[in-house]
């Protein structure tokens, strides 16, 4: 299965911006890692827009 949510950890500043805006509460930040519950993610791309360092790529085809 192709993952819908992908984060480039070399860019991520673990600010949790993505977590706050996700409409389905699919994301969790613990310390420095963002985790995505792929079962909840609807590939809407909102987190991708909110990330201040463009660290997220959403694969819309992964739906």
């Amino acid at each position, binding site marked *: 299965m192709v993952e819908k949510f992908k984060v480039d950890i070399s860019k991520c*500043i*673990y*600010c*949790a*911006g993505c*977590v*706050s*805006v*996700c*409409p389905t*509460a699919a994301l*969790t*930040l*613990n*310390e420095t890692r963002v985790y995505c519950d792929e079962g909840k993610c609807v590939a809407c791309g*909102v987190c991708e*827009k*909110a*990330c*201040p*360092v*463009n660290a997220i790529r959403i694969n819309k085809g992964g739906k």
Partner: protein
Amino acid sequence: MRFQTEYDVIVLGAGPAGSAFSKVAARGGMQVLMLDKKKEIGSPVRCGEGIAEHSEADLGIMVLPQAVASRIDGARVFSPNGKTLCLKNEGTKGYVLERKLFDKHLAIDAARAGAHVLPHSLAKGLLVTNENKPCGVKVLHMGEEIEFRAPLIVSAEGMEAKLAREAGFDVKAALYDVDTCFEYEMAGVPCEPFIDLYFSNRLAPRGYVWVFPKGKDVANVGIGIGGSVGGNPKQLLDQFIAEHPELFKRSQPVEFKGGIISVGAPINEFVKDNFMVIGTAAHQVDPIHGGGIGLAIEAGNIAAEVALNAFESGGDYSKARLLPYEEAWTKKSGSKLAKRLTLRKVLEKLNDDDWNHIVGSINEEDLQKVMEGQFKSVVAKIVLTRPTLFKLLSALV
């Protein structure tokens, strides 16, 4: 390690809101557990770290001297073409904090008052009774899943607010009502004791760039832009820095920070049966500048007094018993913030030319009035020289 697992209240998050609540509640005799997923309370920082000096008296806190990075006399607003307005009076004095120390000190204060504090503990989910009322949390701590129980749960989770969401609060942030921010702490920036705000639609669409001094030559240099405008905050900030060699030609970043912050309205309810939401989790943030430290402590204090009342009169934490927090908060800060939200929604429609005109045609006194929510005479003054702004600014009068 064996844990006490039964408490009177569990506080989620050890930011300013959670620590303020925990201190007051513990001092009043409640058994308090405050947990935070961070292993180091206060770090990483997601903040410009500015706070008004009068907050200390207003909030009944003492800012630890070591947590003050620098003292501030006032604020300066820069228009896109470089015109400046400067606000400097008793009310504009402030601090730029070292939040890593500030937040940790507030947590230490809560512990001194008797609260139990547990860092490195992620609250994963809510426990509920048969009637579906919150009665505890599932926590992941050092590889162990622990169930802590209490008749009152307080979300001081900041913008993430995942458990508040699980409890049914509408805390999800909409892109339109947040600013996405990126910030460097930089060495080698010539500093004066002012917080500087640069407005420009080109460089900071619907937001601003800030330079907050943390010493003679160290500053937080950050940018916040509207969440729905779709720009790249880091790229825009780098561009701002490149365009201001007079400030940054010898500067080096020593820390990367960032985050998103609510600049919309507070959430529509702060309490349900057995649950309270305080601080930035409840979007209690100033919509103009995104400041939320003082408001978080204020909400923590008010909510804790209400919780204590419920505790002392037998531990009924029903919504009706918790509502006085919502009412007191709304009375104290609600209408002030609502006015500032209206102002934000007007300012976000201005183009750079309008900004230049406005900053060029009003004076310090006018700016002070605007900050206090008295818009009428200032709008009249601006419209006199630029009638085309009437339609836009009329929303303020």
